[in-house]
């Protein structure tokens, strides 16, 4: 008797909660469906807000300095937002969640630097390049055995899993006389940490990233020049069908490049200026 009484109350409460949840989720579905029916650019303009996502662990492009988002991407997307006349909101997601999140329409644009590759061109719409992405190597500052990229033959190199720089390294290593052991990490910082600790002999990443790291910890790290990879570029990406958004962002980036604001940002974050293609280049890798 006691038990069935208890169960009765429980069931009634559960039923009520379930109905409430159902009603709430139904409302959600209706609201979001309506929003997605429109063109993304038109929707951004209407709500006056562009929602952009990146992983804020990619200096000098994306940094979270005591909770404040900084870096080249921040400066550039702010300038682009100004051109479009909208406010920009930034999301910090782990890299592995960034591209799935774009497809799930959790935000409008990926402002993490994404290397343009043939494979990715099939799935995403790329903007015009925002920076050089050519793969390079970094070594320990006191290591005299690596003076040029070819010296990594027979050694161990670390890099971030799923990046085009690691793919370029594999292609480069295949042509060397001795095999190179490649260790893949969840993010570049673990690769750098293992480089400092002596577990790997070099780290692979894009030249701007490594130049910044070597400059920040010049006591520990040094660049191996020249970059070994094919010339490649970083772009931002949108969903494949968001052509109007990409066109608007491209126009804004080109304007920022033309009036010298881009050069200022490059000086601030890379310590030097670099020429970038004015159209989306055909991928070399």
């Amino acid at each position: 008797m006691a038990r069935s009484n208890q169960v009765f109350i429980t069931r009634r409460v559960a039923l009520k909660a379930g109905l409430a949840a159902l009603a709430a989720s139904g409302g959600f579905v209706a609201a979001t469906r309506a929003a997605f029916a429109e063109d993304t650019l038109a929707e951004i303009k209407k709500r006056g807000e562009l929602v952009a996502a990146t992983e804020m662990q990619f200096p000098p492009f994306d940094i979270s300095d005591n909770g404040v988002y900084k870096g080249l991407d921040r400066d550039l997307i702010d300038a682009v937002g100004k051109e479009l006349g909208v406010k920009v909101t930034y999301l910090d997601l782990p890299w592995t969640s960034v591209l799935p999140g774009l497809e799930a329409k959790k935000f409008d644009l990926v402002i993490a630097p994404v290397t343009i590759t043939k494979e990715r061109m099939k799935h995403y719409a790329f903007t015009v390049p925002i920076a050089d992405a050519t793969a390079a190597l970094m070594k320990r500052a006191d290591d005299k055995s690596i003076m040029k990229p070819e010296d990594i033959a027979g050694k161990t190199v670390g890099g971030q899993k799923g990046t085009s720089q690691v793919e370029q390294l594999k292609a480069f290593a295949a042509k060397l006389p001795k095999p190179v052991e490649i260790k893949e990490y969840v993010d570049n910082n673990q690769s750098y940490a293992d480089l400092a600790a002596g577990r790997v002999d070099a780290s692979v990443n894009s030249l701007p990233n490594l130049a910044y790291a070597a400059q920040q910890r010049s006591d520990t790290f040094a660049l191996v020049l020249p970059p070994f990879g094919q010339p490649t570029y970083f772009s931002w990406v949108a969903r494949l069908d968001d052509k109007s958004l990409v066109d608007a962002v491209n126009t804004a980036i080109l304007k920022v490049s033309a009036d010298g604001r881009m050069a200022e940002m490059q000086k601030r974050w890379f310590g030097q200026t670099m020429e970038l293609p004015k159209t989306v280049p055909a991928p070399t890798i």
Partner: protein
Amino acid sequence: MKPEVILHSFGYLTEAAGVTIAVSLAGIVIGFAVGALVCAARVSHRLSLKRIGTLYVSVFRGVPLLVQLLFIYYFLAEFGLDVPAIVAAVSGLALSSAAYQAEILRGALNAVPRGQSEAAVALGFAGVDVWRRILMPQALRISIPPLINEFILLLKASSLVSVVGIAELTRVSMNIASLTYRPLEAYVGGGLFYLAINLVLAGFGAIAERRLAIGGVR
């Protein structure tokens, strides 16, 4: 080792610790409510309810929390159900913790000697009162150590909610590591915050145990 890295980021870490505490606390509270319902279903005499309870525990205890979070945040969006990040984080933690808490509560109920409810019925207690005055207080007392255990586990598992974009303690430690290129200092800083929070939580558990304890009774 450069301790000034931790000091420089102290405010940032404190803020992130606040997020970790808030998300975990919400997960614990909602998880306890759902867990109590699931436990009630599992000890029910109705077969259908019993089965629903068992199914709930199997699914939410059997699927990794990370997968649950990704499912709630990304997979539901494919069906037009746009769950905000914070809702996905809290509900992921709460739903998975509810499965564990339900089993803790069920175990505690089973640990109350059968003679207790029999004696209560013999003394003329009404059905609801047997639960309210005899079974629940004793079960709650028994369940406190494993519940505190579960709360501490949940607090540490909350590091996973960064996959939906919540800047909690582990995520912020990683941000600091990438900003400063000093991972060791950043993770030591984050670890100390976790330790401090969990010591407080364990302290509350000890207080609760002492207050609920009855002299001479287990």
